[in-house]
């Protein structure tokens, strides 16, 4: 990590501590040791550690030193696409039901994660998505009595 990113981490730690302190100050007080006692201790600890991280980083001499590799754009895109797909998947779980949402999610996610230079095998992905979704749904619904949302399929299921 560069010195700048280490500094950014320190500032983020400081920010989290301050945000937590602000939220703690909104809580009602009932004496010295009450429900806010530990939150105050923790908030000040986070602020102190954030400040320490910033100070230690600023004292470091190696301005341009980089310990890790820089992320390629394709990597950033894959991470964002994965997060987006998971969020869509969770949103779709109730309205579409587990089987349909899972088939769509798996199919899209298989494509997103296919390594660079390798051609996505769409028929295989489609088959795997349907089989995995069906097997997981059946095992949990009928084997382990976990009522996963079925969406539009509810009336068709035994």
């Amino acid at each position, binding site marked *: *990590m560069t010195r700048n990113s280490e500094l950014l981490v320190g500032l*983020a730690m400081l920010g989290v501590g301050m945000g937590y302190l602000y939220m703690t100050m909104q809580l009602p007080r009932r004496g010295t040791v009450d*429900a806010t006692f530990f939150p105050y201790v923790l908030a000040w*600890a986070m602020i102190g550690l954030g400040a*320490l*991280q910033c100070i230690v980083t600023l004292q470091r001499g190696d301005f341009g030193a980089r310990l890790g590799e820089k992320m390629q754009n394709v990597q950033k895109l894959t991470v964002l696409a994965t997060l987006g797909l998971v969020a869509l998947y969770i949103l779709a779980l109730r309205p579409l039901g587990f089987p349909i949402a899972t088939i769509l999610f798996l199919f899209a*996610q298989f494509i997103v994660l296919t390594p660079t230079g390798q051609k996505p095998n769409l028929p295989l992905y489609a088959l795997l998505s349907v089989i995995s979704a069906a097997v997981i749904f059946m095992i*949990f619904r009928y084997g382990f009595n976990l009522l996963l949302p079925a969406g539009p399929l509810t009336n068709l299921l035994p």
Partner: protein
Amino acid sequence: MFDLFLQGFAAVLSPQIFLLITLGVGVGIVFGAVPGLTAVMAIALTLPMTYSLGPAAGISLLIALFVGATSGALISAILLKIPGTPSSIATTFDGGPMMEKGEGAKALGVGIVFSFLGTIMSIAALMFIAPSLAQVALSFGPHEYFAIAVFSLTLIATLSSGSMIKGIFAGVAGFAISTVGIAPVDAIARFTFGRVEINAGFSILTVLVGMFAIAEVIRVAEEARKRRDAPEPGPIMVKIKGFGFSMAEFIGQIPNAIRSGLVGIGIGILPGIGAGTSNIISYIIAKKRSKTPEKFGKGTIEGVVASETANNAGIGGAMIPLLTLGIPGDAVTAILLGGLMIHGIQPGPMLFITQGPLVYTIFAALIVAAFMMLILEFVGLRIFIRLLAIPKHILLPIILVLCAVGAFGLSSRIFDVWTILAFGVLGYGFVKAGIPAAPFIIGFILGPMAETNFRRGLQLSAGDFTGFITNPIAGTFLALAALSIIWQIYAALRPKKPSILSDIAE
């Protein structure tokens, strides 16, 4: 005790539980062996299957996964020179060169047999230490529990890998997240923003699955499409005849194995550090004690024995504080704690009194899982080697779906699935910022224990703080916590000594 032990074995050897243990060890080995898949993931995605099983069956399955995953890492450590999990880092130092010299079968044989012996040694330690420690812990009150929680928190925050500031911050942040929900003692709602779903706080399992499994999936997603100059090495088939090593070699390694086992058990008991550290420390000790230290790093069985005995000895070691005090040592034991709690089992000294048969079922499950590990790794090695080649872009999305099912199954709420995603993003942020996640989890689990017992202790002593220092056990643990912080600060300020890695490279 003997009766309870027999009862435990009878339960574990019933066809259903025996099958679950076999399955658990097999799946665990795969998760340990495939780099990028972890023991926490294995347990996380199997948890929903245990919801409808009884406590004995559910816990036996989880324990089998734990044993399998700890040992499975040796397969990729030797064949690919990539440790499947951090617990087998030191195995690559000599396992890799042995493979290159054409002694892969011997390295695997040694690794498997000494993994088994390490596990058995640690189970023996667990069975002898845990019941006596539970007896002592029965007399513990809020003062002692507060002090033990503080001591464990300081250890994990200061001993975790990487920067000490970030380690302590992670522990504090985990503690802060645990304050969400209804406060202990005076029942004030804290940081709930009026949402009833978080009145009881976040579930340990959603936090763990998010921080470890989902974050890991995102991290691997980041690597999945990375452009590489050279293709990744593929596994090479190795055929083992017999155990792969001679009786004389086995006998010659016994002192090394006993020493490494003791190191593994000792480190496993300490909260915060486990197999990820003990394998490296025992490797260094083995090298220092060896008559032929110059052979280390060039492919000697001594190195494989030290690493593999120590990492598996951490299994029983880590179970000691978990079962007797309810304190998990690392992420894997934390998720085991979550699994126990789902089945209505609260680890702690009372467990040994109220649920004696279950405790011995756990012991029996550990022993049977150790034997199954030995058998499956020898018999099924070819299958596990093939599984190393499963494409990650197929495996990871399915793991993600299973994690979502697990979160949903906790209380049939989509909210919990959102929670794992949120903690997954947080965990990924931790990875990018170089902040260790293990102290966060331990802070999250031990935070409420520290807060509740601190406030109860104060109530008992009518608001007098000195009770925490004058109580001999509480005072000792608080003094140890203070000493550990002072020692760490001193170590950070004094001139740097060569690191562990340079010690290994010597």
